């Protein structure tokens, strides 16, 4: 029973992080119909900037907003300087659909090399004042530390903020309208280009939160968030790529799934399990658990 509960705690913790990365991918997909492979690069760059802020201020909590704002700005810049001009130049050409995806891979490579040049390909410590040692209940230590608690709480807060913005504000309505029907939105006065940039900025912020929260439980290197890109992507596909709720649920499903596989089967198949789940979802329910109605117009 204890093992079962512990497994759930481990799953919730990693699920929260997967959910954030999944949100980052879904927010971009919704605003520009691009799978953003650069998300891992943007998240790592903002985490490095958070690490720098941490070294200046010697305060982890102050470094978090720095990472988040940096993440939002980096993502907005990638959209405005790379993706938008590219979409305009390739419109109506045969590479229209594939060019943006390739470009995000290019940006990922660029950011990783840049990070390697600046901070070196070594393992750095971005530490949090919270302990990464599990809480003690009586004499037993559970696999859930104060930093894990910060990860779960931080993720919930970010998701609640996004949910409130999308559901209750005029900006949220404009963002949703622009992603569903850009033309009708423009005719209603929504500045669709600006909404796309804001969608990317939100995504960058979500990725930065993921990076800055999870890195204290591991180490920081130019590639340290790459695996998170894979799990975030699988979580996003499980959730249907389209839905914010789906992104979160997809992340939790995957986090819990991994935790149970790890506990009851073994660690060697974790990576392949991610792809098996991905392929299974695509074969059985390609629109994802929370996928949009099939009648949705393109």
């Amino acid at each position, binding site marked *: 029973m204890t093992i079962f509960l512990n497994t759930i705690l481990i799953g919730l913790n990693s699920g929260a992080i997967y959910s954030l990365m999944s949100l980052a991918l879904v927010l971009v997909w919704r605003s520009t119909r691009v799978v953003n492979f650069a998300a891992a690069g943007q998240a790592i760059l903002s985490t490095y900037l958070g690490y720098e802020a941490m070294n200046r201020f010697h305060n982890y909590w102050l470094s978090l907003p720095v990472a988040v704002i940096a993440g939002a700005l980096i993502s907005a810049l990638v959209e405005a300087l790379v993706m938008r001009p590219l979409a305009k130049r390739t419109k109506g050409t045969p590479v229209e659909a594939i060019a943006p995806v390739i470009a995000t891979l290019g940006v990922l490579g660029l950011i990783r090399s840049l990070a390697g040049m600046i901070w070196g390909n070594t393992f750095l410590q971005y530490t949090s004042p919270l302990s990464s040692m599990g809480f003690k209940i009586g004499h037993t230590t559970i696999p859930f530390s104060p930093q894990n608690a910060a990860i779960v709480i931080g993720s919930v807060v970010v998701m609640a903020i996004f949910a409130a913005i999308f559901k209750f504000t005029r900006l949220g309505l404009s963002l*949703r309208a622009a992603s569903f029907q850009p033309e009708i*939105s423009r005719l*209603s006065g929504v500045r669709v280009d600006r909404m796309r940039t804001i969608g990317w900025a939100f995504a960058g912020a979500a990725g930065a939160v993921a990076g800055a929260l999870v890195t204290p439980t591991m180490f920081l290197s130019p590639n340290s968030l790459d695996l998170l890109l894979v799990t975030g992507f699988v979580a996003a596909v499980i959730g249907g790529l389209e839905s914010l709720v789906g992104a979160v649920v997809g992340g939790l499903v995957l986090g819990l799934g991994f935790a149970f596989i790890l506990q009851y089967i073994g660690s060697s198949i974790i990576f392949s399990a991610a792809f098996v789940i991905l392929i299974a979802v695509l074969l059985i329910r390609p629109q994802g658990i929370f996928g949009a109605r099939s009648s949705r*117009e393109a």
Partner: protein
Amino acid sequence: MTLQLSNVKVAHGAITAIDDLTFTINEGELVTIIGSNGAGKTSLLRAISGLLPVEHGSMSWRGESIVGKRPEDLVRKGIVHVSEGKAVIPELTVSENLQLGGIWRKDRADVASATQMALDLFPRLAERMSQGADTLSGGERQMLAIGRAIVARPQLLLLDEPSLGLAPLVIDQIFAAIDSLRRSLGITVVLVEQNALSALRIADRGIIINLGKLVATGASADLMNDPALRSAYLGY
């Protein structure tokens, strides 16, 4: 003189959709643009609202050029386009669709009163405010699309085939609503229609186009009584 087009040419891909078109629509007029499928009616509206670029010629609204302006800016100048095919966002609720019409407006009190006006004109929308727009019938969707335009406080309302795919009874309701709207607000309306007879009945004037060129223009009654036009373009 409010909306003025001179020698306007619009291309849709490689095809010339509108060719050397010149006309003027006066303040407060309801003018219907008539023509068969592929005559260029939709392209014409899309060019006026900024969705399609103008290749050649000039267009002005209240003396100011509108060539090269973006739709989201033209909305702020009062040019509101209800595009073809029940232009609502099915993923949003009825209430959110209406809200979207006034999303750019600062005067929130007036947005509220314009919304009330749309609901008075189409009471069926009021009963369905919290429903998803995807649950509406075709006629209700068209009402919602026009309702969203009303919330934007249009000065020049561009309507693209509001009768398309609707039952005759519903078409009558939509046309009656358009007629009452322009009478109560005194706004200028450009109504693109294939349903020529219904459109001419509420319009002051008609402009007939074919293959992107002007064929005839005149008062609705004159067009309706011209035997040659009737058989060739009005279809009755």
